[in-house]
């Protein structure tokens, strides 16, 4: 017990120091873990309402945020990992300020987003009661090597969940994995009326010999049924949640809301209230880099994080209907994925009409070259991000702007925007 108290105290101290320096979010967790290796297991030992792990390639941060909002709207206290330190030590670091020296977290529920690899480390320590399996797409192959391997990790997360799993009926990898589970599975997916839009949000070439899903919704399963480009309902066999209009645009966000709603209902049971859920979803702010809008000299500038072919394709589809002045910033640091060959699996045809004002980042010329092959005109190539941002704002001052960027490029751009344009709440949310 004393050891736990020491670990909690040391972790809190390191976290306070790290935050004063504006530094890393995982280190305090590491310190606490060194002193008491079982600290995470102990902290989560008394959570009555469930321990939920959200995982998959795309949409973790958005979905987690929505799920937490719906649960809190139902008067549940929820611990989550909003700084996007989506690995075990990050979860621990986030938990430290709320942790009493007993080392036992006091919350009704815990909802954490973890990438597939870190989910495995988490389940080695703590068995989740539930998991939400979103999708499997090519991402960071320099880390995970193969998409089949990623799919296997999600299957193992599902198998480690003790009470229930919520799974994407439209994703062939997730669907295959969840079909093999012994625990109850709730499914979410697109309504048959919009099944033809599936290619917008899934990995195309991984699907070639998968038959289309013909799963009839059972009790507790939900389908997304859009009313128009913005408003939609989440339809259960017995009840509908909606109409909901999210603050975030696009079909992918609607699917994330459907996943979150399905999971919330499974967790809340009879306490689930459709009107409370709808109101909570409508109030969720877009997370960091998911269509976040910053005011730059009276004009909106949208920051859109891109990190893999499926995600970039979704982003281009989502924003393609409203073309604005566009910049693309591509870095190839570890956090971005060092391999930029995935850019050749994205079609940039939707940018052709308007063209691209600037490409920037370490791989600015590679991006310009990629656009050249899709006949998209590029006005300028400026590798330095700060210089590029200034040039972009100067050249397109009187109009709305959009920047597609990889993770570290976004971090750098946000720092510059914070310094020059008073960007609020810097670092409050971070991506998966």
């Amino acid at each position, binding site marked *: 017990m004393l050891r736990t108290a020491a670990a909690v105290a040391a972790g809190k101290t390191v976290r306070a120091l790290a935050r004063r320096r504006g530094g890393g979010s995982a280190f305090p967790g590491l310190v606490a873990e060194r002193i008491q290796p079982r600290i995470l297991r102990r902290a989560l030992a008394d959570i009555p309402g469930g321990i939920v792990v959200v995982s998959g390639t795309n949409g973790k941060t958005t979905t987690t945020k929505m799920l937490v909002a719906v649960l809190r709207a139902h008067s549940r206290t929820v611990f989550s990992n909003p700084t996007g330190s989506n690995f075990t030590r990050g979860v621990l670091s986030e938990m430290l300020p709320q942790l009493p020296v007993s080392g036992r977290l006091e919350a009704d529920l815990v909802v954490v987003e973890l990438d597939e690899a870190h989910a495995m480390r988490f389940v080695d320590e703590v068995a989740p009661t539930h998991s939400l399996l979103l999708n499997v797409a*090519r991402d960071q*192959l*320099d880390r995970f*090597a*193969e*998409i*089949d391997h990623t799919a296997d990790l999600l299957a193992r997360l599902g198998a480690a969940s003790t009470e229930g799993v919520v799974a994407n009926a439209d994703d062939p990898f997730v669907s295959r994995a969840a079909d093999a589970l012994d625990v109850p599975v709730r499914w979410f997916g697109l309504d048959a009326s919009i099944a033809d839009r599936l290619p917008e949000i899934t990995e195309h*070439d991984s699907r*070639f*010999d998968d038959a289309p899903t013909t799963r009839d919704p059972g009790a507790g399963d939900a389908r997304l049924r859009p009313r128009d480009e913005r408003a939609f309902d989440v339809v259960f066999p017995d009840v509908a949640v909606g109409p909901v209009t999210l603050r975030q645009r696009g079909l992918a966000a609607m699917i994330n809301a459907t996943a979150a709603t399905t999971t919330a209902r499974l967790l809340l049971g009879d306490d689930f209230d459709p009107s409370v859920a709808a109101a909570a979803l409508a109030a969720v702010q877009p997370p960091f880099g998911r269509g976040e809008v910053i005011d730059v000299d009276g004009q909106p500038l949208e920051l859109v994080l891109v990190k893999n072919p499926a995600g970039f394709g979704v982003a281009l589809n989502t924003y393609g209907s409203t073309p604005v002045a566009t910049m693309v910033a591509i870095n190839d640091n570890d956090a971005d994925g*060092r*391999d*930029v*060959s*995935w*850019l*050749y*699996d994205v079609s940039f045809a939707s940018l052709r009409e308007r063209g691209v004002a600037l490409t920037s980042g370490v*791989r600015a*010329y*590679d991006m*310009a*070259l*990629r656009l*050249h*092959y899709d006949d998209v005109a590029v006005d300028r*190539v400026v*590798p330095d991000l700060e210089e590029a941002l200034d040039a972009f704002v100067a050249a397109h001052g009187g109009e709305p702007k959009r920047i597609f960027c990889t993770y570290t490029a976004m971090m750098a751009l946000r720092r510059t925007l914070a310094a020059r344009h008073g960007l609020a709440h810097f670092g409050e949310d971070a991506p998966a």
Partner: protein
Amino acid sequence: MSTEILAPDGPTKGTVTLVHLYPREMSIYGDLGNTRALASRIRRHGYTAEVVDHHPGADFRDDAHLFMGGGGQDSGQARVEADLEAVGPTLKAMAADGVPMLVICGMYQLFGNSFHTVGGQVLPGLGILDVTTRGNDKRMIGPVCLETEFGRVVGYENHSGSTVLGTGQEAFGTVLAGHGNNGEDRTEGARTLHVIGTYLHGPLLPSNPMVSDALIAVAAERATGRPFEPEDLEDPLADEARGRQVRRLVGAR
């Protein structure tokens, strides 16, 4: 099989048929970029590009002038095995006849003599390139810079197979930065006649247009019966993208 025709802006100098082998199953690291680069460059040189996607079980175009094959996962390789066995002898005869081919990663391994899995299984290859690959627990991943007969080439590798060249087998290049065939002998890829095998996947050709031109020159000659008549093409973006990677990876050496 699906076919796309790209005509040049002016009068055509002839039609070059380019076959992309298994674009669905063996195309996980942006390999489509290589096909796009070849097609676009054939066009810019004033030829018509006929781009054929070859899928398992489809009729094989034994009259093609140029082949491209990419990398896949184990599950993708399993899906093309039977077809590759069927078209293998034709591919081998065409390679020996001097048809240019670019094979990357998984297809490079399949073009070799054999692949020895970690579990001790021996999978025979087509034997077009005299190389042997052994499965490895460690993956070789990262950016690469090579010295080749076409000049300095940049790319990205991600493979667990460790490949060794047979006696007398030429490499595609010498490793200046990165792992290459096996991380030990500084060789990368293999080249026999006009067949190039390499681990550099994805946008190899967009960033290294001189490799495209070497392949296209031979293909155009086979297609028209006349010497290659290139246009004088400028590639400032490719040159800058490549130059920057070379400087990052090997400095000013």
